[in-house]
């Protein structure tokens, strides 16, 4: 309530600002790309399983493409999460969220499992792990999150930040 009132006054330009400077340009970190990549892994598994072409060559082509893209998207999950974990999370944040190391390790392992096979449950587990990572990330910025169904297949629940404007 009080925060909302102050936020309103701030938007009207009635509250002065002071900077808690960093000595490097602030990095732009966002777990969104990792989440989209994780959802893409599930989607690619679905397409590979549901391939309906009667032409065996076309079906082989489709599955080869899905496998290739799934490999890339799973690797992207790992890369995006590694960067946030390695560059954004500093000692104070790690102390406040000591489970982040185990969570990131679990993401690495699960993303590898998604590369190795086409088990949908692995893909779903990967999405859930990255959701948890996203929730921790936004919590470090004191930004609320909500789990909403993504507006595209496979329509899974994803963590989105709830932004003021």
């Amino acid at each position: 309530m009080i925060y909302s009132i102050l936020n309103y006054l701030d938007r009207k330009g009635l509250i002065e600002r002071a900077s808690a400077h960093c000595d490097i340009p602030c990095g732009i970190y966002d777990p969104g790309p990792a989440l989209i990549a994780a959802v893409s892994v599930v989607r690619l598994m679905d397409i590979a399983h549901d391939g309906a072409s009667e032409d065996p060559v076309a079906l082989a082509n489709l599955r080869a493409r899905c496998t290739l893209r799934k490999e890339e998207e799973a690797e992207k999950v790992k890369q995006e999460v590694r960067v946030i974990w390695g560059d954004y999370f500093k000692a104070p944040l790690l102390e406040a969220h000591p489970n982040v190391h185990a969570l990131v390790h679990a993401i690495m392992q699960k993303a590898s499992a998604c590369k190795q096979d086409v088990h949908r449950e692995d893909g779903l587990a990967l999405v859930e792990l990255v959701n948890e990572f996203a929730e921790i990330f936004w919590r470090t910025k004191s930004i609320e999150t909500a789990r909403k169904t993504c507006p595209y297949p496979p329509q899974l629940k994803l963590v989105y930040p709830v932004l003021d404007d």
Partner: protein
Amino acid sequence: MLGWSLIRVTGESMSPMLSSGAFALFKRSAIYRDGDVLLVDHPRFGKIVKRAIDVSADSLWLEGANANSLSRESMGPVQRAHVQGKIVYQIARKT
């Protein structure tokens, strides 16, 4: 206003003690101690929020709360006249 300042903090150098987006109330004081979170009108960086260290009779040094902060050397010693108050209350963004 009467030695009080209501400020919105931007930047993460005081996180997790004081996160970006939080509102903080500062009160001018005659006494500042090591560890106080201060509002400072810095000659080079403008209005900043930092933690006091090595407070002496006429000057003090500043530091952030995490490794991302400007270093104490880059901010240098500041005269006490530049200190506009120490934090007495904060309202963090709801989580």
